[in-house]
């Protein structure tokens, strides 16, 4: 039988060690599954985790892949810290892309200096609107935010599908479900690094993502809002005694998460696609959940966690090309990683022992 005794304090080295051990275990289990399914495990791992970043541009692409994950996960950290289970970031991301796309298509003659801020604002509003549905329903009617936010993800995906096939389709697109290309002012440009030149697809949105997660860290650890969020998550009763309004906090964290996800959607489209299409997100909203947990719900940690998970995503693309594996195989890694992280959390908080069940153990408990 497993017995668990709470640890009195969690040492710092455990905080850093457990994610590393979790990653290591994930690789081992992943390799075992590959082996079982008849793939060469070492070769698979190489194509997954080494080949994608073995070149300079690969590192740029890694940051590009991590960009929407970092932004979305930073927002989700606030939700999960406050024990609000928003798992519909995927839909909020899509709505951000739609709102920003609407602005970009409506004002094609605006210069970047006005168009870009307008698009950013629109995307944040779009994400917030979508997040407010589960938030307000939870506050007003006590509905389950997990189910509502998830259902809205399907609705958002169908909505953008309708837009790009119907009213927003470019008449010149030869029947492809695509909107008009954005004007140059609506695009996020690539970064020219001094001496090196272009680093893969590295674009300015990545800089924004890194800054955003630092702002998130500041908000969470140094402001009264962040304090309230942490108290409501760790000790809701204490929070209520202190006079914090749980409903306002629910709405606040959902707005932060929705706004961040919406922004991620706008950046993804403006930097990588240049027009709206039926699939603007490839599950980033769901993957960001894992990023948030890998970061142990810490906004700065989100940067590193985002890069690690992005590597698995890039690896998935590469494995698809080189080994002919289906794209979803990254899901296996992501799922195992989340399992390992959660187990690590238990290991951090409790001392785990295997104990024989029997009269002896009953005696010891007395």
């Amino acid at each position, binding site marked *: 039988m497993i017995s*668990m005794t709470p640890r009195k304090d969690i040492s710092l080295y455990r905080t850093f060690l457990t994610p590393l051990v979790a990653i290591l275990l994930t690789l081992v289990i992943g390799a075992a599954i590959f082996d079982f*399914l008849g793939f060469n495990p070492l070769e698979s791992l190489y194509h997954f985790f080494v080949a994608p970043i073995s070149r300079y541009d690969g590192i740029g692409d890694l940051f590009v892949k991590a960009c929407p994950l970092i932004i979305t996960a930073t927002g989700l950290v606030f939700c999960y810290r406050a024990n609000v289970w928003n798992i519909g970031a995927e839909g909020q991301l899509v709505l951000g892309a739609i709102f920003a796309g609407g602005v970009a298509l409506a004002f094609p003659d605006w210069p970047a200096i006005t168009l870009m801020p307008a698009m950013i604002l629109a995307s944040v509003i779009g994400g917030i609107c979508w997040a407010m549905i589960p938030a307000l329903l939870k506050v007003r*009617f006590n509905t389950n935010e997990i189910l509502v936010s998830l*259902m809205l993800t399907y609705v958002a995906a169908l909505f953008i599908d309708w837009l790009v*096939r119907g009213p927003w389709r470019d008449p010149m697109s030869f029947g492809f479900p695509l909107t008009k290309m954005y004007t140059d002012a609506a695009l996020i440009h690539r970064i020219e690094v001094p001496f090196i030149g272009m680093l893969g697809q590295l674009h300015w949105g990545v800089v924004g993502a890194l800054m955003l997660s630092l702002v998130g860290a500041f908000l969470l650890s140094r402001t009264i809002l962040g304090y309230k969020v942490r108290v409501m998550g760790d000790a809701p009763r204490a929070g209520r005694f202190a006079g914090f309004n749980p409903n306002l906090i629910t709405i606040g964290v959902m707005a932060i998460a929705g706004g961040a996800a919406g922004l991620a959607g706008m950046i993804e489209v403006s930097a990588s696609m240049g027009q709206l299409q039926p699939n603007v997100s490839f599950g980033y909203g769901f993957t960001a959940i894992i990023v948030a947990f890998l970061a142990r719900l810490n906004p700065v940690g989100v940067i590193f966690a985002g890069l690690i998970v992005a590597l698995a995503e890039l690896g998935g693309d590469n494995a698809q090309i080189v080994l002919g594996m*289906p794209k979803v195989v990254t899901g296996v890694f992501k799922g195992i990683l989340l399992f390992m992280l959660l187990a690590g959390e238990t290991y951090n908080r*409790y001392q785990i022992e295997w104990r024989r069940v029997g009269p002896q153990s009953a005696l010891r408990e007395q």
Partner: protein
Amino acid sequence: MEALILTILLTSVPLIFAATGELVAERSGVLNLGVEGMMLMGAVSAFAATSVLGSPYVGVFAGAVAGAVTAVVFALFALGLATNQVATGLALTIFGSGLSGLVGAPFVGRTVDGLPVFAIPFLADIPVLGNLLFKHDIMAYMSVAFLVIVALFLNRTRAGLVLRAVGNNHDSAHALGYPVLLVRFYAVSFGGMMAGLGGAYLPLVLTPHWSEGMTAGRGWIALALVVFASWIPSRILAGALLFGGITIMQLAGQARGWTIPSQMLSMMPYIATILVLVIIARNRRFALINSPACLGRIYMQNK
């Protein structure tokens, strides 16, 4: 009209399976959000087994086993290691979607012969009703049979009482000497088996092929159905038929050339789920009277 009702009945079968299983798990106090992942594992295993071994009955069995095994993974973490149930369930869904895609990759594009229709003697000859109710595949009968068994088990047996006690107050149940974790382990495994059966129904009856993510959110709708049923088994039947009806209405609407865009019609099951959740949650007493008090709460032995 008769054909329409028949398709509604068939569409609701996977929901009945998955929701009934999840209801048992939740009544024991465990919230397993991994239904979608378990259904996908059930679906791919059922299809693969049928495709390789040639018998859809083996497929049914394989689906049930795969669902249960996937649920055991959840149980090891959420019960054994007392991890957060919401996050663990999400992990299971992500893992299940990925692994099912990987396992099913060689089977994409193949088709199988689905489950044959088994008409019940005499009863099937009743006009109209016979066609609607007594000319189905064996799994359709199974889904209703399981629902009845679960309802009787929960309300009429001692073991069912223990299961509900564990779900309502695990500390008291432990003090009375009941093995809380073991009861929950059985409940979660049963839930997984049922989700696996629900998943198996998709490639074996509804659409005789396998494609990645073919459950398309049915696992999540099953979770919403449990809330809709306010944790009472008999209400699952009504809920599943309602959702089946909405799904089919959308398809029928497309076939009849309604002027509403098809995407708007496809949104209906999801929007209906949200509306139903709101309507149920508004009446707090109705919604919560049977909800297990310890749902989602972590229990640790020898703490």
